[in-house]
């Protein structure tokens, strides 16, 4: 199924300058599966989102259809057909 990924400005250069990606993910689709698909296509982007043990980076948030995924099972969050995943860095640091 097709998932739409919206990227923050700071990460677009890792995806060829694109702000919005259409990603094909095998069913049943989860956030983890989406990130696995992203890793195939844009490894330099995906490693900014997860560490080498596939853990979500602490200060990167994933909103699935408007809801932050950590409240919906993290990487196990199920994605519907045409879901929109928005990636937003946390407010952090100084």
């Amino acid at each position, binding site marked *: 199924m097709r998932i739409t990924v919206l990227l923050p400005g*700071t*990460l677009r250069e890792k995806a060829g300058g694109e702000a919005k990606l259409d990603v094909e993910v095998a069913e049943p689709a989860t956030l983890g599966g989406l990130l696995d698909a992203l890793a195939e296509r*844009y*490894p*330099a982007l995906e*490693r*900014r*989102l997860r*560490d*080498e*043990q596939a*853990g979500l*980076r602490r*200060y*990167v948030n994933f909103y699935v259809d408007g809801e932050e995924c950590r409240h919906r099972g993290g990487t196990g969050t199920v994605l519907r057909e045409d879901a929109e995943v928005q990636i937003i*860095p*946390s407010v*952090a*640091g100084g």
Partner: protein
Amino acid sequence: MSVLLAIGTRKGLWLATSSDDRASWEVTGPHHPMTEVYAVGIDTRRATPRLLAGVTSEHFGPSVATSDDLGATWAEPGHAPIAFPADTGESLARAWQLVPGPVSEPDVVYAGTEPSALFRSTDGGRTYELVRGLWDHPHREHWTPGGGGKAIHTVLPHPTDPGRVTVAMSTGGVYRTEDGGETWAARNTGIKAVHVPDPYPEYGQCVHKVARHPAEPDRLFAQVHHGVYRSDDAGDTWQSIADGLPSDFGFPIVVHPDRPEVIYTFPLVADAMRFPPEGRCRVYRSEDAGKSWEALGPGLPDGYWAGVMRDAMCTDDADPAGVYFGSRTGDVYASRDDGDSWQLVAAHLPDVLSVRAARV
């Protein structure tokens, strides 16, 4: 002759270049803005020097960037240059060291990391593999984080024997391999540990930095958490050389590039008082391998309350040699007369974590 000074800070990398024998400097930056640059290296074994920078974004994690045009452009591999294998269950927090290997292995670069591990690159520092022998060491589970984290922050490849590498960490101490990384032994005899009940344990010392001169590879100097030491047998045994210093606490120690008897450090009052003594910014130099010390003051300020971290002091390879340090208040000073006098290269940068300099 141009000299390049790479300045890693908590918010990016600055590059200072001098083309008039270090009388004046042109500073560019920030390169890699909003990344912590704990590790920076200048690999002069190549026809064109390669810059190596360990860059860690608080949001997007760690990476290693390289530049073959003195910082004009940077490259990073798509896949993570340093990554812990799946079976370790660990993830890289940051690279603390990026160190070119011996001249006989021009494509070898070592990385010392947090969590404490050693990685080895055979492609000039672009991608790295875990050195399993050290990772599998039975002591590893007993290494504990120092104030800065649990990291290998000193990597000293032997200048002529590729099989010999010495590493150090806080807290764990000094370890050495003689078989290319297969086996490692603790080398801390004589180094006092002030933070555990046993003052002279086999390992667990909080070693802040170890330095050596390539012409005297068996002589090592160490700045420890309350202790300054010399070893004349490659780390097998250590003797205190702290007499004559205002404090045995500090972070950096470096050796003069041409004179193996000449060393520099930056004492702080104490563990619990990490200020220069009396607020006077002073580098201390020994010209007799630690038997005696003198404070170097001309050009350095009083009323100064910032420390100098373990990788924020270095020398260059120019003639005569230069000495450099950066502080946590973002000032960078340079000397081109062995430390007799100092000039400001840059001020008001973010806090300085690492400096490296070389002729380019």
